[in-house]
């Protein structure tokens, strides 16, 4: 995976104020972290955040409880589970993708179609009114299924099945929630087909997680929780897990420190992919054009160094009195160069007279 992948997906998610897409293994322990990322990233009302969180919980638990799993993974049925949340304008799209046994399809279809039978009045019964005040309980919405919730809260629900073999189909489910009654701004920014397409592109790039949006410290921390959990479940080795985590922190904080501010947020994208048992960590963000030359020089110089030279310059940097933010960033890039199994990949894409899109990719 090249550093340019960051730009490719950044463009695909261009309209997104916030997006989080996660593929792989799911368990209930992850739910709180996902909720926290949303809570910390969004500026909507608390009531709406609560509503959104209950959908996230439900959607997540749906995947945990109902996804079917082949006994033997083959090329055809190797379709990891996916959870996605995207915010565009006032619309929020929550989607899940998982395998289900073909013999369950009929039942599920019946349930999904029952939504259409509800009258307008019934739909008007705001689901939120029936929710208890305050925090969401561990069980999410008291056992209310996702489909029931969607019915009662008048949120748009789309789904599709993709037949993959005699036993399994991929089940795509997508919900749309609207934060404000901004009817003028309503449109379908994310169609179900877009999500299906995205799923396949993520699979093709072996992507485990994408996060786009603001990268302030408070949104980074819950993300680290998710990744720590994921890395631990994949790699039992303490040693490599720790290194991946260390590099994650450096890359994510790099965005929060150095990204060019756009509408008051440090916007960027972070992608983690797994290929041949190695993690490829990629970030992308806008930077000021006048920072490009210096950064390029620094990266080129680091790329030309061998292990010994890197160790020397690391030591020199740590012992220097320069404690400014600039010096700190230097240490980060040196450490990335030291720990990356392949040479650091980077790319500068000229956007306009003041802005360049900078992407950085390391393998660990």
């Amino acid at each position: 995976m090249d550093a340019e992948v960051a730009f490719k997906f950044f463009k695909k998610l261009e309209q997104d104020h916030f997006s989080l897409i996660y593929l792989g293994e799911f368990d209930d322990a992850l739910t709180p972290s996902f909720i926290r990322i949303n809570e910390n990233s969004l500026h909507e009302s608390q009531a709406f955040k609560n509503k959104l969180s209950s959908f996230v919980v439900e959607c997540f638990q749906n995947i945990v409880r109902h996804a079917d799993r082949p006994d033997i993974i083959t090329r055809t049925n190797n379709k990891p589970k996916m959870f996605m949340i995207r915010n565009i304008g006032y619309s929020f799209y929550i989607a899940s993708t998982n395998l289900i046994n073909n013999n369950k399809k009929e039942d599920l279809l019946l349930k999904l179609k029952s939504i259409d039978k509800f009258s307008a009045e019934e739909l008007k019964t705001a689901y939120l009114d029936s929710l208890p005040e305050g925090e969401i309980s561990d069980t999410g919405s008291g056992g209310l299924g996702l489909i029931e919730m969607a019915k009662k809260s008048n949120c748009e629900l789309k789904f599709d099945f993709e037949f993959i073999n005699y036993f399994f189909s991929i089940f795509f489910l997508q919900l749309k929630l609207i934060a404000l009654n901004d009817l003028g701004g309503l449109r379908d920014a994310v169609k179900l087909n877009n999500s299906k397409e995205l799923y396949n592109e993520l699979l093709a790039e072996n992507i485990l997680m994408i996060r786009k949006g603001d990268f302030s410290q408070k949104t980074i921390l819950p993300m680290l929780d998710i990744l720590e959990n994921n890395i631990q479940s994949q790699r039992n080795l303490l040693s490599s897990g720790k290194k991946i985590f260390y590099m994650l922190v450096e890359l994510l904080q790099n965005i929060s420190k150095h990204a060019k501010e756009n509408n008051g947020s440090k916007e960027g994208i972070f992608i983690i992919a797994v290929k041949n048992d190695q993690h490829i960590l990629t970030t992308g963000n806008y930077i000021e054009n006048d920072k490009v030359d210096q950064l390029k020089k620094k990266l080129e110089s680091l790329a030309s160094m061998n292990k010994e030279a890197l160790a020397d310059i690391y030591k020199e940097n740590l012992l220097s009195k320069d404690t400014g933010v600039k010096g700190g960033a230097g240490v980060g890039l040196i450490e990335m160069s030291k720990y990356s199994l392949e040479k650091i990949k980077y790319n500068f894409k000229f956007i306009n007279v003041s802005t360049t899109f900078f992407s950085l990719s390391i393998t660990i």
Partner: protein
Amino acid sequence: MGASIKLKATEDTPDIILDREKNKFSITGRSLPEDPSEFYQPILTWVKGCVKQPNPHTEFHLKIEYFNSSSVKQIVTILIILSEIIKTGNEIKVIWYYKDGDDLMEIKGKELKSMVSLPFELQIY
């Protein structure tokens, strides 16, 4: 300079105990603050004051689970200040803890040890 500093761990900052009376000095847990130089500023100030009149035997315990690169820089600065104690004729020893099999922390401990001139012990926990 206050008598002691006690900071409870947060999600991204470590638990810190600097207590001259009880002769306990430790940094434990995660150190991932966005701006480590800001976080460690009061710590550095305190340690600077402490090394002027150190206890006869000081053991400084570093048991760090996760860190960011710029926190390491701050820790190096603490170690450099601590090495002043040697000149006063008092004893100072730094103990760096790491879990068995945790290469990153073991290597980091060795790197730090090679950078500063004071007794520095690596210990598995």
